[in-house]
């Protein structure tokens, strides 16, 4: 049964087609080689499989299903939480968190000895949002009646009770100002509420009455506008927060990490070891997802954690022994000779416990002895139950161990078959040596 299926995979970079409609299927426990001249798009195929590139077309299935980060409830919950948090933050900023703090904390807390009630603070917060007039203590033990945002003072009272009465009267004015009318009455001017009966205030001339009406209408309108702005900000924050979370997730749906966790490991053509880490740490790093334990356990280095680390070390040691690097555990990766670095990359890839391993030119830069050892190593990897996909230029390596070979030229598959079939294929010979007519 086939483990990896490429169906019409196309990778385009701008106008350049690197891989064109590639069909290919790799069976379990097979050694499958991809060969072709330089620039044929072999590494691009590997990059598309491991999620470094997103194929422009076609599909890649592993074990019969496409590799994608699943949509889980956790993501939905996270998007909701992030959305709500951004919404609340944006709303608070729009409603002026500074003034809100003053209204709730500062007005309620009068010093270390005075009692403070969170319920009163909460009530004042609601009052601030509604735009209720508030009392603020001022110097000399007096109280000021102020608008919710503290921008205007509407009067003073010497005692709290007096101030409260003043506040209630002013509040009535604020509430009724918008619908109030200025009515002439016995050469004085009255501000009458919209029920036509309640007289709110009496003035000596019309201009004062009109000005007062305008002033109180503005005071009443300010919190309405602020509430509207805050609501818009909160909704925008909600949408942006949750959509952003979703977008980040969506963009990383086929990230290399997801592919690796599903069981595809790879090595790189231009060696990409963690240069400044030791050989052992390179392998341990790749075992990351098989090591459990929370940050707290790691920080406290609990006995369970130590045990797991020791087990991981032992396992990593075995992998290094498998590729023949057991004696170099403490060396830095960069200080290894070239051939050893390639083998370390293989050990690191094996440490992720893959089902399929992609080797990108593992024999590049190796001498004949090393490359024949590599043949043995690849064979042993297959005996561990893994499937191997290989890009290689050394024909000795390729023809010696491959079960199947696909030949790419300019991004197009020109041949596929057993080593003998490929060797005899005229299209392959043409791709490598040029056609007869050229001579």
């Amino acid at each position, binding site marked *: 049964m086939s483990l990896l299926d490429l169906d019409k995979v196309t990778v385009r970079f701008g106008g350049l087609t690197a891989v064109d409609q590639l069909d290919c299927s790799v069976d379990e426990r097979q050694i499958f080689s991809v060969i072709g001249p330089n620039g044929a798009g072999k590494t691009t195929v590997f990059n598309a499989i491991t999620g*470094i590139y997103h194929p422009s077309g076609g599909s890649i299935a592993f074990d019969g299903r496409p590799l994608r980060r699943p949509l889980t409830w956790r993501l939905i919950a996270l998007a909701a939480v992030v959305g709500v948090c951004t919404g609340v933050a944006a709303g608070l900023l729009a409603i002026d968190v*500074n003034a809100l703090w003053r209204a709730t904390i500062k007005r309620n807390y009068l010093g270390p000895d005075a009692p403070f009630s969170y319920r009163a603070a909460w009530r004042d917060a609601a009052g601030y949002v509604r735009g209720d007039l508030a009392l603020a203590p001022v110097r000399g033990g007096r109280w000021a009646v102020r608008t919710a945002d503290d921008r205007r003072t509407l009067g003073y009272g010497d005692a709290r009770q007096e101030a409260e009465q003043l506040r209630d009267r002013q509040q009535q004015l604020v509430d009724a100002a918008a619908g109030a009318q200025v009515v002439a009455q016995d050469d004085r001017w009255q501000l009458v509420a919209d029920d036509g009966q309640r007289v709110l205030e009496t003035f000596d001339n019309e201009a004062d009455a009109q000005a007062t009406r305008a002033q109180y209408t503005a005071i009443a309108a300010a919190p309405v506008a602020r509430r509207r702005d805050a609501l818009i900000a909160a909704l925008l924050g909600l949408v942006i927060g949750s959509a952003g979370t979703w977008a980040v997730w969506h963009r990383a749906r086929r990230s290399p990490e997801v592919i690796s966790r599903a069981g595809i490991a790879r090595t790189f053509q231009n060696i990409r070891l963690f240069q*400044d880490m030791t050989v052992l*740490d390179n392998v*341990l790093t790749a075992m990351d997802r098989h090591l459990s*334990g929370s940050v707290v356990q790691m920080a406290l280095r609990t006995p369970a954690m130590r045990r797991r680390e020791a087990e991981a070390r032992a396992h990593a040691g075995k992998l290094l022994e498998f590729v023949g690097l057991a004696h170099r555990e403490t060396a*830095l990766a960069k200080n290894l000779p070239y051939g050893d670095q390639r083998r370390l990359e293989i050990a690191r890839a094996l440490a*992720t416990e893959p089902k399929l391993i992609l080797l990108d030119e593992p024999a590049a830069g190796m001498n004949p002895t090393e490359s024949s050892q590599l043949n043995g190593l690849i064979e042993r990897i297959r005996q561990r139950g893994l499937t191997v996909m290989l890009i290689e230029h050394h024909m000795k390596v390729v023809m010696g161990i491959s079960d199947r070979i696909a030949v790419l030229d300019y991004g197009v598959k020109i041949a596929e078959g057993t080593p003998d079939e490929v060797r005899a294929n005229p299209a392959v010979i043409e791709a490598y040596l040029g056609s007869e007519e050229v001579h």
Partner: protein
Amino acid sequence: MTPTAKRMPVWPLYLGVLVVYPLLVYPERALAGLTEISVGRQLTYIFIYAILALGLNVVVGYTGLLHLGIAAFFGIGAYITGILTVSAYPFQTGFLVALVASTIGAAVFGMLLGAPTLRLRGDYVAIVTLGFGEVTRFTLRNLEEITAGTRGLNPVPPPQLPGFVETPLSWLGIGADWSLDYRLFYYLALGVLVAVIWLLANVERSRLGRAWVAIREDELAATCMGINAARVKLSAFAIGCGLAGLAGCLYATTLTSTAGPDAFDFNRSMIMLCCVILGGLGSIRGTLLGVFLLVGFDNVVAPVLDGLIQAAQINTSGNRFLTFSNWKLMIFGLALVLMVRFRPEGLLPSAQIEAELGHERKSHRPAEAPA
């Protein structure tokens, strides 16, 4: 690399000196004649800056993300502590709650900053973090009702000592009054610093520590090995900024004030970065050495030399060029230039980076022994 014989670790010696120092009366008194500064009091601040630098080291040293706004998180920690403890606000939770809240609060802000920078590399991370640092400073200044603007929140009360600690302290001759005796803050900061070092050393050797370094070394290869780069970077931001918040809490408590927002400006971030680079990126020992050298030079050596010059009556006319403090920045800059020229890996680099840069130097010499 030649195998070195297992040596006795030297850190217990350093720790011993630092633990014993405040109990000796003589050194403080000897210096008291020269300047008004108390070395012990300054050491307390050095410990606090060491925690801050260790936090920065997690982000810059291990994970390789150039963070230029660490002071902002130091400030966030200080202000959270201020808001939770000062008598001007009703919360007055006490020191321990403030300590935890500052750490967690700064860590959350660190993640908020980290999340949008996940896809950025190198210089771009630096620009975003630099901007965030300045934004934080101005936000702290402009939220006048909450943060008291440029004045800062004060007084931040000292921690409450449990009763059973006071008696043993009095045997050692340490009073229980935080405002009179610096030694309480000294031991508090030293204790927290030792705990932080221990925890970080453990994380460094664990899965997460390796993932941080792997991201620094080669992010693509790390993700291809199944490491979730986003999560690892966020954890580095959270832990690094959380430690900065913890340091901020200790700073505000020791100073009994949050200081103004300008105490958390770009300069402070820069000095901390210099400490980490001077000591050696990605090395706990190196970072500690860097802080002791740079902050120690700034806070202890310079004032003491000033005092000496004053005492010797060299500078009676008040000549600016004869005041050591005025040469401070020049010496500091010169030292950095020389260091980058002759020892780019830092004074005490991590074993890994030391091998990397040391290797290049050694390759010029004839091989001493075949590998």
